[in-house]
């Protein structure tokens, strides 16, 4: 797959069809891959990679890259194409400037999960079908690939690309995912338990903003939390109220627009399960307004941004169970 992608990139660069290629670049180790812009064949030969660790969703980089002259090629995994569509529908990307190559994906691996099993000191890693062999400074291990899959990949919602100009590899299908199971578990808690659960999680937040900055739905030019004039700027979660507020506002702001791409949970250095907040919103929207998957169709009008007379008016006051 990687070789086919490299050739495609080089071909389109050589023909002048695209000015640049957004892809993934090899790191120091076997897992620390960086999103990168490649502009010539040499760079691609030296650094381009597509493997188990290319989890980063490249669609948000298009906001910046597609503002420049000429066309860019971007490689998108199935889940990334939903983010791409959502960005299109919000007019954040000029479609004409992008050449989307969809790439198939059999799930990405979470290095943190591997480290939790094998410990520190990973120096070599190779995956062979269902197994991953890991060599550390201290020992050798073989683990099941399935056990190392990222949370969002365990609960993958779709292997189907919803946008592309060209597809490499096999096309998949929308999956019957179990992604709401954990949300239900939390719904079944008592209000106090739920509060306790979220306080415990959010109290670890260091307000590093990684979740916000990586999020394709968080594409405001200037976030209210960064705007000195907003009165809400806060760089540190000084009180528990502020810790909660940032996340509540962010979750509401991406509600109906979050595609459940999973980037926020992937990047959180504190391991906060932000996907659970977003999935709660998605689940509620599905229940109240009918099934809706953000990013599935770039022409669709989001349930929270369009009005119909039949819109429900849920209320925590009147709808008390």
């Amino acid at each position, binding site marked *: 797959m990687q070789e086919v992608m490299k050739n495609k990139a080089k071909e389109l660069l050589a023909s002048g069809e695209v000015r640049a290629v957004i892809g993934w670049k090899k*790191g*120091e*180790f076997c897992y*620390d*891959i*960086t*999103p*990168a*812009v490649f502009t010539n064949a040499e760079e691609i030969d030296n650094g381009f990679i597509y493997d188990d660790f290319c989890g*980063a969703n490249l669609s948000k*980089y298009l906001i910046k890259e597609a503002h420049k002259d000429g066309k860019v090629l971007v490689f998108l995994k199935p889940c990334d194409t939903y983010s791409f569509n959502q960005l299109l529908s919000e007019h954040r990307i000029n479609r004409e400037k992008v050449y989307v190559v969809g790439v198939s994906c059999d799930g990405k691996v979470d290095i*943190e999960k591997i480290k*939790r099993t094998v*410990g*520190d*000191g*990973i*120096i070599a890693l190779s995956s062979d079908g269902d197994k991953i062999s890991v060599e*550390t*400074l*201290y020992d050798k291990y073989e683990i099941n690939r399935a056990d190392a899959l990222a949370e969002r990949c365990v609960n993958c919602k779709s292997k189907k690309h919803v946008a592309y100009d060209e597809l490499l590899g096999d096309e998949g299908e929308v999956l019957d995912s179990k992604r709401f199971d954990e949300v239900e578990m939390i719904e079944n808690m008592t209000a106090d338990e739920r509060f306790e659960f979220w306080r415990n999680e959010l109290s*670890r937040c*260091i*307000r*590093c*903003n*990684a979740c*916000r*900055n*990586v999020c394709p739905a968080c594409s405001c030019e*200037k976030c209210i939390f*960064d705007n*000195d004039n907003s*009165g809400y*700027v*806060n*760089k*540190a*979660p*000084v009180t528990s109220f502020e810790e909660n507020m940032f996340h509540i506002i962010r979750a509401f702001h991406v509600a109906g627009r979050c595609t459940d791409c999973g980037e926020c949970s*992937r*990047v959180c*250095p*504190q*391991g*906060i399960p932000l996907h659970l907040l977003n999935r709660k919103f998605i689940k509620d929207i599905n229940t109240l307004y009918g099934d809706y998957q953000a990013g599935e169709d770039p022409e669709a009008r989001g349930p929270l941004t369009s009005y119909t007379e039949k819109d429900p008016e849920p209320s925590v006051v009147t709808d008390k169970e």
Partner: protein
Amino acid sequence: MVKISFEKLNSLFEKISEKYDLFVPTKKNDGQSYFEKWEQGKTVSDDLNTVRSAKDFFFPQHEDIVSFKLDGKNIEITDERREVRPFVMFGVRACDVRSFSILDKVFLSEPVDTFYKAKREKGIVISLACQKPSETCFCTTFGIDPTEPEGDIRAWKGNDCYYLEGVTEKGNALLSELSLEECDRTEVDAQIENTKKILDRLPLGKLDTDSFGGDKLKELFDSEKWASLSESCLGCGTCTFVCPTCQCYDIKDFETGHGVKRYRCWDSCMYSDFTKMAHGNPRLTQLERFRQRFMHKLVYFPANNSGEFGCVGCGRCLNKCPISMNIVKVMKTLKGEN
């Protein structure tokens, strides 16, 4: 050198807790370790690094400085500084211990930061030698010896006990209060020898630092490579918030409705309003902000501190950056190795 068996560790911690707040690294349910106040039942995690560095104890993410209250035509000013109880940190790794002396150079030089100083004076650091360094560890690049960490007291974890050795006056004073069993260094020496062999095999253990330092300012600042290095940086600030040596802060006023609370909190050079002044921001693009972080560690800090680098090689930014861009990649790329 003295020792304390694992079975007796709890009673030792209990004893320390009588006079001090004791903090130890403990594992949380997210699988990572954090310094937490010790209480019965809390165990010391063997993880190398806590997610948040140990600098939090001296330079917390936020602290209140002063508050103003309006009362008619009068303004009442209150010093909000909180009295710190003497505290002990157990299990700080060599990299984090070194970060304290880097922070000291900033906060304890004139004009002295009295908030920092008060905490520094009240804190006793018990460091813990590393036995199983990670592939992301490169403290040795900066001349730090993780087998013999600095600190007020240094500790090694043996097979059935911790070995402790006083380093500073403060540390020796605490040790003498604790009256522990004297012992020899045999197991410790063997451990050190063993760990040193592993350190030799660390992939980043001996990075070449010759191309960096205060005298390289112009060529590094002007390098064309910053563009590609910073290209995919999200400007999130994770690297600065987990870094034990990042030291920038902002002073903010919070309007409470009937007054103002002035506090300081960590800032990040990766942020768009970093060092924003009346005329605007001196670093308009992410390239400039990104460059600031690494130039600070590799050039500006050594320029002002007789060559000492502002990084301790703890590896946190390697582990936590969402796009896996970090100081090692920057160093290697600037040198033309990548």
